C-alpha cells in the first residue's frame, strides 16, 4: 500500500515538474522544476521495484547515482545562470 502511494506521488511530481518546465521560460524556474520532476522519477523508481518486501540494492545504487548526476548538473546550471545574469539581459 505504501509503495503504491509513493509510486503515485512520484509520478505526480514528475508530471508536475515536467509541465512547469515546458510552461515557464525563466531559467531559475526551469532548473527548480526539472529537479522536482527528477525527484519524482527517483521516488517512483524506488517505489516500483521491491513492492512490499523491501527495495533492491542495485536499484538504490542506480537512483543514488542519478541523484549525484542531477545535483552536479544543477550546480553547473546555476553557475551558468548567475554568469548570464551578470552579463545582463533576460535569461
Amino acid at each position, binding site marked *: 500500500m505504501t509503495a503504491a502511494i509513493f509510486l503515485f506521488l512520484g509520478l505526480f511530481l514528475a508530471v508536475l515538474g515536467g509541465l512547469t*518546465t515546458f510552461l515557464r521560460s525563466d*531559467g531559475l524556474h*526551469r*532548473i527548480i522544476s*526539472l529537479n522536482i*520532476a*527528477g525527484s519524482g*522519477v527517483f521516488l*517512483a*523508481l524506488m517505489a*516500483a*521495484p521491491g513492492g512490499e518486501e523491501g527495495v*533492491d540494492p*542495485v*536499484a538504490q545504487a*542506480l*537512483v543514488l*547515482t*542519478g541523484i549525484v*548526476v*542531477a545535483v*552536479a*548538473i*544543477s550546480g*553547473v*546550471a546555476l553557475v*551558468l*545562470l548567475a*554568469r*548570464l545574469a551578470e*552579463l*545582463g*539581459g533576460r*535569461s
Partner: protein
Amino acid sequence: MNPLLPALVAALLPLVGSILVWLVPSWSRALAVVTAAGVLVAALGVVNRVALDGAAMMTLGGWPETLGIGIAVDGVGALFLLASAVVGLAATAYGAGYFPARHPFWTLWLLLWAALNAVFITADAFNAYVALELAGLTAAVLVTLGGERDAMAAGLRYLLVSLVGATLYLAGVAVAYTATGTLSLNALMADSPPMMAGVLALGGLALKAALFPLHGWLPPAHARAPGPVSAILSALVVKAALYLAWRWLEVAPVAAEAFILLGIGAVIWGSLQALRVGRLKAIIAWSTVAQMGYLAVGLALAVEGAAGAAMGVAWLALTHALAKGAAFLGAASVVRAAGHDRWPLAAAHLRNRPVLVLAFGLAAASLAGLPPSGGFVAKWYLLDAAMGAERWLLAAVIAGGGLLSAAYLYRILHPALDPRPGAEASHPVPPVLEWSALGLALLVTAFGVVVPWARDLVGVAA
C-alpha cells in the same frame, strides 16, 4: 592479444591525460598531443584485433555481471572508436594552435574524450549512463568557454536538455532492470524488457542525439561553441547518443518505425533550415540535424534487418564524423580570420586560402554523398538497403536529401570560389589550423576506397 586491452587504453588514456593537464597546465598542449597520438594507436589496435580475432567482451575485476563493469568491442564499436580517435587527434592539433596552454579547454576536452570512448566500449546500460552524463556535462561547459552571452545561454539550454535526457534514460534503465534483473545490454536484448523501458531510454537518447523534433538545442549550442569544440560536438558527442540508441533499438525493435518517421522529418527540416540561415557555423550545425536523420533511418533499417543497412549506418557515422570535423575546423579558421561568421560576408576570408577551400570542398562532397568519398559509399549502402526492403518512399528521401545537402553546401562553396581577391585576415591563422581540417577531409575521401575491408569488419558482431 585481446582487443579489449587497447580499448581500455583508449578510454583511460584521456582520463589520465586530463588529470595530468590539470596538474601541470603549462605542459597541457604537449601532454594533450601525446595523449591523442596514444589514443589513435590504441584505436588502430582495436580495429586490427577485432578484424583478426573477432569481437570480445569481459567483466572487469571478475565481479558478477550486475556489479562488475562490463566492456565489449565488436566491429561497429571499433569503427566508432576509430572515428573518435581520428577526429580527436585533429581537434587536439587544431586546439594546440587555437587555445593557450593555460586554458580550461584542455582538461575538459580530455575528460569528454575519455567519456566518449567509454560509451563506445561499454557493455552495460548503466555504465553507459554514467559515461554519457560525464560527456554531456563537460560538453555543455565547453560550449560556454567563449564567454559571450549567446554561448552561455546555448550552454545552459544544452545542459538542461542533457538533464532531461539523462533522467528519461535512467528511468528506462531502471524499468528494464526491474523487469529483467540485469543491466547487461546483451542480456537485455535476449530478455526483451517491457516496451516502456525501451521507449523511455530511446526517448532520452533521441533528445541527446538531437533527433527531429527534439533538435532545437543543437544549432545554437554547436554554432556558438568555440571553433574546435563545435567540431568535437557535431562529429562525436551526438554520435555517442546515437551509438547507444543503436544498442537500445536492438533491445526494443518496436521503436524502429518511429525512428524512420523522425529521421525523414530531420532530413527535410534540417536541410531546409541549412538553406535559410545566414551564418556559416549555423549552416553546418543544421546540416548535422539533417545527417542525424539519415543515421536514424539507417539504424531503424539495420535493426529491421535490411541487408547492408548496418554497413551503411556504421560507415555514415564514421564518414560524417570526419567530414563534419573538417567542415567545423575549417569554419573555425574562417571565424578567426574574419572575426565573425555572417555568410556570405565572411567568405572573402576563405578566397585566398586554397588549403581551406579544398578541405571544405572534399568535406562537402562527402556530406552530399558524391563519389569518390566515404559519404557516397555510406549513402549507397543505405539506398540499397531501403530498396532491398522495398521502401521506395524512403529511398526517394535518401536520394532527395543528398540533393538538398548539395544545395546548402553550394551556399558555402560558391562565394569561396569567387575570382575576386580575398580579404586580409584580422587575426593570423597558423598553418596547423588549415592542415588539420584538410587532413580530415583527405581521410574521408580515402574512406571511399577502403570499403571491402570495412564491410568485413562491420560483420563482426558481438
